[in-house]
């Protein structure tokens, strides 16, 4: 199991992610999560055009402070870490995954881009309504035995399975 491998056992890889809860709980005093970073970024972008954003509670509480900037730094770190890992193993990815040709017949970035955009929009809108995503509710919430997270994760799998079954078999 070295950085040059194209794949690690999913167990090894994810034990590493589970262990990231230690610095999150002890140093940042929060559970691991990624979807509120979208709100932080969105709030700063919206603030360019709309000066009232800073007065809106939901945006305002996500704009500044260590916890918010920590999470934005973490998602940037994910890009860097995945890039470095890909460089070392040589598993560079093509423009879009071949799964989109199999599932919906899309072979080009221009046909796939609107679908990716719509997927991202629905995904983060849903995550913010549920107050968490696969990381925040799924990994952190279920690990804390939170009832709300268990409900949200069950609904998430239901929605995802129903949608994927509408696509062609991959």
């Amino acid at each position, binding site marked *: 199991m070295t950085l040059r491998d194209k794949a690690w056992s999913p167990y090894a890889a994810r034990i590493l992610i589970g262990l990231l809860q230690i610095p999150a709980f002890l140093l940042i005093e929060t559970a691991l999560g990624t979807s509120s970073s*979208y709100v932080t970024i969105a709030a700063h972008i919206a603030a360019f055009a709309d000066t009232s954003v800073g007065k809106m509670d939901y945006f305002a509480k996500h704009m500044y402070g260590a916890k918010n900037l920590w999470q934005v*730094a973490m998602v940037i770190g994910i890009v860097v870490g995945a890039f470095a890992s890909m460089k070392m193993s040589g598993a560079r990815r093509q423009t*879009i995954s071949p799964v989109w040709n199999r599932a919906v017949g899309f072979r080009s970035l221009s046909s796939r881009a609107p679908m990716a955009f719509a997927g991202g929009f629905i*995904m983060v809108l*849903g995550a913010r309504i549920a107050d968490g995503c*696969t990381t925040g509710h799924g990994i*952190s919430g*279920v690990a804390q035995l*939170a009832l709300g997270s268990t409900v949200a994760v069950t609904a*998430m799998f239901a929605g995802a399975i129903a949608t994927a079954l509408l696509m062609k078999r991959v």
Partner: protein
Amino acid sequence: MNILFAVILGLAMGAVFGIALEKSRVFEPGTIVSQMQLRTFLMLKVFLTAVVTGLVVLAVLNGAWGVKMFPKALVWQADIVGGMLLGVGISIAGACPGTVFAQIGAGYRDAWFTVTGGILGAMTFGYLEPALRPIMLSGGPGKLTLDQVAHIPFWAFALAVAAALAGVLAVVERFKPWREEAGPDFDGLAALASRPERSTPASLSSASA
């Protein structure tokens, strides 16, 4: 909390997170879609392994040192409606809000559109939040956890759930070994008997589209 320290810590934790996501292949759209079509179980394995590790870590941190927990509140409408939308989005995007950043790092260009859509989704939610709060984001029993409902200490319940999930993982792995599920090109797609020739990479066809 010193902001500079938080940012440096975030970058470092993100780098570890990104390496682990890339090596586990769970960031692959092929892994997500084939999991949701119940054809492979790599995503479930990766997900449950992280849950089991988290359970054990928190059982120790909370049980031995009383480290504070941060469970989210149970709000039925928000958890069900939001969770389902999240799931629909995950299958269409072929990503989760966190793994899409690993897709960018690994070279998938459509991931930039997913992130842009996600930022717009967050912005839309920020503007709708005051209107949604009274009808679906509030109420409910609050920060309820299973150990409270069952009146069992967190550490004991957490370790029991961790053991049960580890058992599930062992059974799934026996029938679906992860090396086969990652696929010949590590993209989460099994080789097809009639697999289309890969001599036309997506990068070429996108130039002509």
